């Protein structure tokens, strides 16, 4: 009637301590009928090949406790709350189950959805179930397994927790029929592979079965009495074998970590939901931080390339610089000479223009010409005529008397000066 599912479960090879790389394989569960449910007779009833099989160093041995051996009690604790309050709950476990505290093996299963236990203290989505079994009842099986494998059992989990590893994560809604103790069938309900309710009462009503088939995937756990209820469904129900359950128990901790706590063994931690955002943030920071370094290194690399190119250019560059510097020095010398002599204009035009300002009957006693001015002194019929004639010239301007005119027998003396126009001072630079 009862079944124990012992599985030589998965070989976990971890790299970096975190990542599952492969699953080595799952051995078929051993199925023992009630008639052989004597611990001492267990080893003898097994095939010779199973008597001393080596599960391997890295494999884990998980014992799935049948639901018919388990008592279920809803509790308003979420998974973290269970971890914190486990000791307190265990101290008062007798108030939850009719089991002595020293004989109780208690596990936890998280529940989601509308089938969760209602509580004022905690939101419904954070409620779960306490699942207890008798240690003394399981001990002979645990000892037998340890004798066979030579190793201790790593985990003992209830059948309900093994549901998490059945691969129902893609099913929006799944219902698993369980033939419990004394033939009382119950229903376990899952949404997207997560348990929303367990041990729900099951009715064999045909209409209810039809509605059940319409709205959900239905599976049926193996039944030790070899009788199933699949025939009650028009299209049948997926019949789960002990191997499926064993595999589910092995994979439960992988596909639904943090959803349950085993009766014996260490609870698998909940997935670190902050890990992905933290990694994304770290990557973003890394990208921003490395972007500057990358750009800097590119500039530095480009600078090095330029430096090497400059080295290869050294000889022709030196020669070109030499030629250029010599050319510039010569040009500078030439420009210096040209600048120094550009205002060296001929004085003859100025002299002739000044001479022309003198009337035909006049006499020139003295004439002085420098870079900007002309001075004339002499005698003429009219000194004013000389002054006006000079002023009319295009070469001079600002003609003025230096001293007053004195009368002479032929007219009067004149002593005048005028400025030379700038056009006549600069002129065309000499070559």
């Amino acid at each position: 009637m009862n079944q124990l599912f012992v599985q030589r479960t998965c070989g976990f090879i971890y790299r970096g301590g975190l990542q599952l790389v492969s699953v080595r394989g799952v051995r078929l569960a051993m199925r023992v009928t009630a008639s052989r449910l004597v611990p001492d007779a267990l080893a003898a009833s097994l095939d010779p090949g199973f008597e001393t099989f080596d599960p391997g160093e890295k494999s884990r041995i998980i014992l799935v406790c049948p639901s018919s051996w388990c008592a279920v009690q809803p509790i308003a604790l979420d998974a973290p709350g269970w971890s914190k309050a486990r000791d307190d709950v265990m101290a008062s476990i007798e108030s939850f189950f009719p089991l002595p505290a020293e004989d109780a093996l208690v596990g936890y299963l998280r529940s989601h959805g509308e089938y969760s236990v209602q509580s004022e203290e905690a939101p419904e989505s954070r409620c779960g179930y306490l699942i207890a079994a008798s240690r003394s009842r399981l001990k002979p099986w645990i000892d037998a397994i340890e004798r066979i494998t030579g190793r201790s059992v790593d985990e003992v989990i209830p059948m309900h927790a093994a549901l998490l590893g059945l691969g129902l994560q893609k099913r929006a809604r799944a219902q698993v029929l369980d033939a419990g103790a004394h033939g009382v069938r119950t229903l376990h309900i899952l949404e997207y592979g997560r348990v929303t309710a367990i041990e729900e009462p099951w009715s064999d009503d045909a209409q209810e079965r039809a509605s059940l088939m319409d709205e959900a995937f239905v599976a049926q756990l193996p039944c030790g009495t070899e009788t199933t209820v699949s025939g009650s469904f028009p299209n049948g129900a997926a019949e789960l074998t002990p191997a499926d359950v064993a595999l589910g128990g092995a994979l439960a901790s992988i596909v639904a970590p943090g959803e349950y706590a085993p009766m014996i063994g260490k609870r698998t931690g909940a997935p670190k939901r902050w890990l992905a955002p933290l990694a994304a943030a770290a990557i973003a920071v890394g990208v921003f931080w490395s972007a500057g370094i990358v750009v800097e290194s590119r500039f530095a690399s480009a600078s090095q390339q330029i430096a090497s190119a400059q080295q290869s250019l050294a000889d022709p560059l030196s020669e070109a610089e030499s030629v250029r510097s010599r050319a510039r020095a010569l040009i500078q010398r030439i420009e210096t000479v040209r600048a120094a002599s550009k205002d060296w204009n001929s004085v003859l035009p100025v002299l002739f223009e000044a001479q022309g300002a003198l009337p035909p009957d006049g006499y020139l006693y003295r004439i002085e010409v420098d870079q900007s001015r002309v001075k004339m002194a002499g005698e003429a019929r009219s000194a004013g005529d000389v002054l006006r004639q000079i002023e009319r010239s295009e070469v001079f301007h600002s003609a003025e008397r230096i001293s007053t005119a004195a009368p002479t027998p032929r007219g009067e003396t004149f002593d005048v000066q005028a400025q030379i126009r700038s056009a006549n001072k600069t002129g065309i630079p000499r070559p």
Partner: protein
Amino acid sequence: MMNEKRKRVIGGAVVFLMVLVFLDRSGAFIMSPGGLASHREAYIQQAALYSAQRSLVEEREMWSEVYDDALYEWERMRSTFVQAGTREIAEEDLRERIAREIEDFGLILAQAVPVRTGPAPEGPIQIIELRLHFAARDPMQVYSVIDRIEHMTDLRIGVVSVEIKGPGIKQLPEQVDARMIIRAIAMIGRDF
């Protein structure tokens, strides 16, 4: 519920990225002491220098032609300088040369004095000046001398100022008195 959660997540991500962008803009992610700007600035300067060097190498032929042209011009120009070892010798050479030119007109250079104003010039290219004094028969002779001096093709020379007295009615014939300052460019010492 999911929408609210998504909004919070997206809002948090946006705020986080804004903080990152702000920190990036403020240079918090630059690890080197000078920062990215210094690397970029150094690269730009180096690239500009390299570009200029390449251009100079490519312009070598052009600069060679410029040098040849400048050298030809300089040689031509240098031949018009009064070249001497010292300034005094250059002034004496110029004086002797001017005296010969004046003698061609049958005149005698009565006086030729160097004009020195200010501190002694430095460098090989210097301007030397002479104050000349001579007598002529008429102003046209003086003009001819000036014309001769101003058109000496083998010397870069010019007349700074001229003072002519006569031949007013108070002067006797051959009593035109001419004074002038001339200047020329001299190259003192050896060519550099």
